């Protein structure tokens, strides 16, 4: 018992142990709620909800009417859970930097690559998130919704997505890091 508690307090688990936990979550997701895990869809559901309230005409199209119906879906609740789960994880290993000076940009590798400015990190995160969400919309899912949930049902779409993700990810990392790659 003490061993388990001590392991929970560790900051980084062996990825294999954490992977087994995620695998069990995936099984229970299908077993208990007959749905797949997915994060990116929730943002589209929320965006649709806001969009229909602000500009109903612009959001009255096939995508938001049929493919991604707006509303507080179980995916939205899942994302809220992911947020708090991540916070619990950080709290158990005492790495939760709530309001501390370095909290917004504490990654040393990021600082070495792009510089220490916080606004740069926020700007890049914003632009990157737009790219991510747009791509997830095209592919029909993100890392969790398509690559992991689709992969565990052996969907060909998931493996095509993983292949594409790694191909362009490697090229982008090469371009960013150049000689330090």
């Amino acid at each position, binding site marked *: 018992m003490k061993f388990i508690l001590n392991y929970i307090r560790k900051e*980084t688990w062996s990825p294999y142990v954490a992977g087994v936990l995620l695998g069990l979550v995936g099984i229970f997701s299908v077993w208990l709620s*007959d749905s797949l895990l997915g994060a990116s869809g929730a943002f589209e559901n929320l965006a649709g909800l806001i969009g229909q309230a602000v500009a109903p005409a612009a959001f009255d199209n096939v995508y938001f009417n049929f493919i991604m119906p707006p509303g507080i879906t179980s995916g939205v609740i*899942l994302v809220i*859970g992911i947020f708090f*789960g991540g916070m619990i994880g950080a709290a158990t290993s005492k790495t939760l930097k709530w309001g501390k000076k370095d909290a917004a940009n504490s990654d040393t590798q990021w600082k070495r690559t792009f510089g220490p400015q916080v606004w740069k990190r926020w700007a890049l995160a914003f632009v990157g998130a737009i790219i991510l969400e747009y791509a997830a919309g095209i*592919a029909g899912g993100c890392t969790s919704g398509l690559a992991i949930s*689709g992969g*565990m049902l052996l969907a060909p779409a998931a493996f095509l997505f993983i292949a594409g993700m790694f191909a362009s990810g490697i090229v982008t*990392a090469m371009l960013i890091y150049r000689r330090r790659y």
Partner: protein
Amino acid sequence: MTGSIIALFLGVFFGFSLNKAGLTKYNKIVNVFRFTDMAVLQFMMTALVVSMSGLYILRGFGLITFPNVPATYIVGNLVGGLIFGIGMALTGY
């Protein structure tokens, strides 16, 4: 209502495992593309193997039916994945 509670708990464990595997950190995500830290792949593939075998065993016993499998659009999935990788390497999502 129960569905929402289940979703919340699944999300908490999902986020917890992501945090403990270190996937909430920029350097973990980008280093997998530089081949210096394979934690992301180890994590993803372990999760895949566990849930894949678990789900197929449960279906074999007739305990569950599979939900709709994500649809295959070869061009869509590939192009989406290609754009996704750019964002992933940039932000460390």
